[in-house]
């Protein structure tokens, strides 16, 4: 899947995160988006999928139906884990995804009763269960220990057989272990 950024400029106040950014990117399988903190990785994802409109320029070729795992978990606090995931898919898919991330025993727990890592996995399960043409994951394993990361990484590889996966990470080993293509943002304004 080819996506083109045409002359994209994004500013926050005085700071230009992207300035006349023009690139055509080819996505297939798993792609890792890397770069220093604050370089603009989240902005890149949000502009790519249209959640954020750039001050100028356009993005072409990105599908309308996509899935986005936000940096924040954004679980509905009044729903239990299963309801949270099932709202984005259906109950069978939700159960499957929750079992895949190791939350099969926490289906009826509300987010407040889960640990930070469990909440992250519940949000990841919701993204995995949601059917779409592109999967965007903003630091999907933030707050998870090494062991859990290692057990969840293969899920992205499985997902990549269905749709392109672009995930933000700070850990080059994650990209390596998945054999992922790497996009690295650097500089200010950011470039590839």
């Amino acid at each position, binding site marked *: 899947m080819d996506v083109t950024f045409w002359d994209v400029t994004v500013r926050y106040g005085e700071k230009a995160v992207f300035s006349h950014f023009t690139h055509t990117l080819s996505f297939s399988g798993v792609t890792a988006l890397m770069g220093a903190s604050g370089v603009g990785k989240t902005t890149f994802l949000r502009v790519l999928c249209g*959640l954020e409109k750039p001050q100028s320029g356009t993005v072409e070729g990105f599908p309308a*139906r996509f*899935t986005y795992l*936000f940096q924040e978990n*954004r679980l*509905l606090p*009044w729903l239990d884990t299963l309801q949270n995931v099932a*709202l*984005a898919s259906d109950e069978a898919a939700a159960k499957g995804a929750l079992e895949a991330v190791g939350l099969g025993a926490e289906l009826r727990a509300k987010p407040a009763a889960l640990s930070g890592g469990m909440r992250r996995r519940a949000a990841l399960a919701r993204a995995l269960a949601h059917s779409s043409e592109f999967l965007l994951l903003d630091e999907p394993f933030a707050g998870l220990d090494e062991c859990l990361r290692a057990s969840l990484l293969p899920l992205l590889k499985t997902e990549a057989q269905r749709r392109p996966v672009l995930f933000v990470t700070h850990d080059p080993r994650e990209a390596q272990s998945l054999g992922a293509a790497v996009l690295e943002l650097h500089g200010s304004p950011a470039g590839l």
Partner: protein
Amino acid sequence: MISGMASERGSRKKEIGKKAARIVLSACVWLAAWQVLSSVVGKEVLFASPYATFTRLFSLLGTGDFWLKTLRSLLGITEGYLLGICGGVLLAVLTACSEWLYAVFKPMLTVIKTTPVVSFIILALVWLQKESVPIFISFLMVLPIVWANLATGIAETDPQLLEMARVYGFSKHKILRYVYFPSVLPSLLTALTTAIGFAWKAGIAAEVISTPRDSIGAQLNNAKVYLETADLFAWTLVVILLSMAFERLIVFLVGKISAYAAKEGA
């Protein structure tokens, strides 16, 4: 385990007993203060004693007329209260959907909030039949409270959750049911309980001025005209008790709604 349950029941009974004792003590203190004050004044026509008030109240309770008047006032104020809730919810939704509508209706909210209620009562007397005045006034007092609370609740709905709902393709119904409704529920419930007191106070004031037939307000007005202070006190007591009972009922219903929403996950 059984002994544990029995001791739990025992401590609950003790707690209820303590609470009842506190209520009785508080009531005794205030009744004594009332009695002392009326004795100091020394004239029933200026300040009715508890004895005269309760004697009058009990004699009223035995008449069919009392129940008819109480029921009519209760129904009128309840009608105004419910209409105010409906109007407030409708306006909150409309003004949340459109900044233009908000700009149009906002001055109305300010006017209702700042205008003395008696001005509205007099205007309503000119516009409406006197039986409808208390309904209209209760409606007018409840509407801005529900509207303001609900509008705040809608405005404070987490934009991150709304963005998530859009990305994950929630239908409009799901967004309303699972994002907006639980977010605004606390503000709405606060509004419902706050509005009761206003509906009663303003509704009875409207009845006193408009004196619709068979109403508590008309009886209060009669008591004033004929200097029947014990009647005035007795009917005021009825209003206080009704308002408290109504508030208890709403708090009970609100509790049920909250429990149901929590159980259903919204």
